[in-house]
């Protein structure tokens, strides 16, 4: 009985000893993520109209709309706002991507978001383009 017991685990041991390691030598080897992987948020500044829906739906408070200028429609002058993303609080849930009807937002497959300077994760890409 006891010989059989040893045999059970031994067979598995030899099998795993012959196999390739399942671990990846990260960061020396690349980690391949799935196609649908929800990583760092990205914005397309040209498509973004500054409607502000993303600010309303974001559960983590990543997005703030800041005024970038004025635009006149007819005789009215309205403030143009664009989003600033504090990506250090982003939870990559993808709610903003889902609710953006202009297709300006997307989640990339980047996941290495550890930085020394928190400020480097503030994305102001959308501010540059003012229509």
């Amino acid at each position: 009985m006891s010989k059989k017991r040893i045999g059970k685990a031994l067979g598995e041991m030899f099998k795993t000893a012959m196999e390739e390691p399942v671990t990846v030598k990260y960061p020396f080897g690349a980690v391949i993520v799935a196609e649908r992987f929800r990583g760092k948020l990205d914005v397309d500044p040209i498509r973004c109209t500054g409607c502000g829906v993303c600010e309303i739906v974001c559960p983590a408070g990543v997005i703030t709309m800041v005024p970038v200028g004025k635009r006149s429609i007819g005789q009215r002058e309205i403030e143009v706002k664009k989003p600033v993303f504090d990506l250090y609080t982003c939870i990559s849930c993808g709610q903003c991507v889902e609710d953006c009807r202009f297709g300006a937002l997307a989640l990339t497959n980047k996941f290495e978001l550890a930085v020394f300077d928190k400020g480097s994760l503030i994305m102001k890409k959308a501010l540059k383009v003012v229509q």
Partner: protein
Amino acid sequence: MSEEEKERREVGAGLMEYSPENLVPFGPVHPSLKEPEYFKLILEGEKIVEVHPRIGYVHRGIERAAQDRTWVKNIYLFERICGICSFAHSLAYTEGTESLTEFQIPVRAKYLRVLIAELERIHSHLLWLGLVGYWTGFDTLFMWIWKDREHVLDLLEAITGNRVHKSFSTLGGVRKDLTPALVSKLEEETKFITERVKYYETLVHSEETLVSRTRGVGRLTKEIAERLCPVGPLLRCSGIDRDVRKEDPYAAYEFIQPEVKTSNAGDIESLLSIRLAEVTDSCRMISEALDRLPEGPVRVPFPRIIPRGDAFFHVEAPRGELFYFIRSNGTPKPERVKIRTPTLANLLTAAEMLKGRPLADVPVVLTGIDPCFGCMDRVTVIDVDKSKKWSVSGEELRVYGIEYYRRGAGKR
């Protein structure tokens, strides 16, 4: 204060400090991975005579925070209550909220919810089995099982986009659909897991390392179970046939029935076999769901304002019954959400199971209830005979337990 009185107070601290009033503080979020939970064990020599669990160290105020967030934002908030059964939380919340409205959720979405819930059950049970291996000193088993569990996590990432916080279920359906490539991958992996579990089933009942530490350890009788009302596998190992998926079907569980396994042994070994049988059953349910998966949309537009009303909803999380109470006052935000997690229901049963066991069994029995684990970080030991008190960390207790059984003390 005289020296004598001081000493007496120190010895009695274990019993006096926790009066029934502050023994069960409110804490919906307490049981999670590597989070603090405090057990006061009172010993007579090696034998445990009293166990005083204290909870609430990681009270994060999630229920209050939910009142300030909209219905959709709360999905992501409740998902973060637990890292292991995150989908069970979002499922209970979304289905509960949907029951307040008259919207019909697409059947395909319901099937997909079952699919992810079962995948999550597989990964949670495999995680637990690996941890039992770790706490009993069978580290090889821990590594093998976690290697196989990685397959399930990769599947979850491929389907939902994330390994842990899936954000899959949403109000009105699910957020992603299956592709043919994913379906074939799912079929392949469930076959693989079924085969591996078959091997582990023979291994855990024949391997001396595991058997000596689990057989007859922490016996839970039907009487204790009826008195203390544990949930999930812990209840089923005492011989009571209860499963929310069967008794009150939600999502697509009315079409895909689970086979509820029970055992009368009531020890940790029977928990091992029940959980492994559930993994096999989950694999069967996944392939059944894939076979019957209806065509159609996976999501319907859902309003941002939920009508006034109360909803009670419970789901079978991997650890047992997870309960949600949701109250809406007809605004974009919930008025009140109350959550009861399975570990809260199981904790006192674990304390009862420990009574009469040697100190070395503490890690195994506490892991046995699958308590999301942080519990072991600080345990105070009070020895009634020697009248002294000392603290041990989880790691020290693990080594102590392994050494205790290596000496053959467990066989006495």
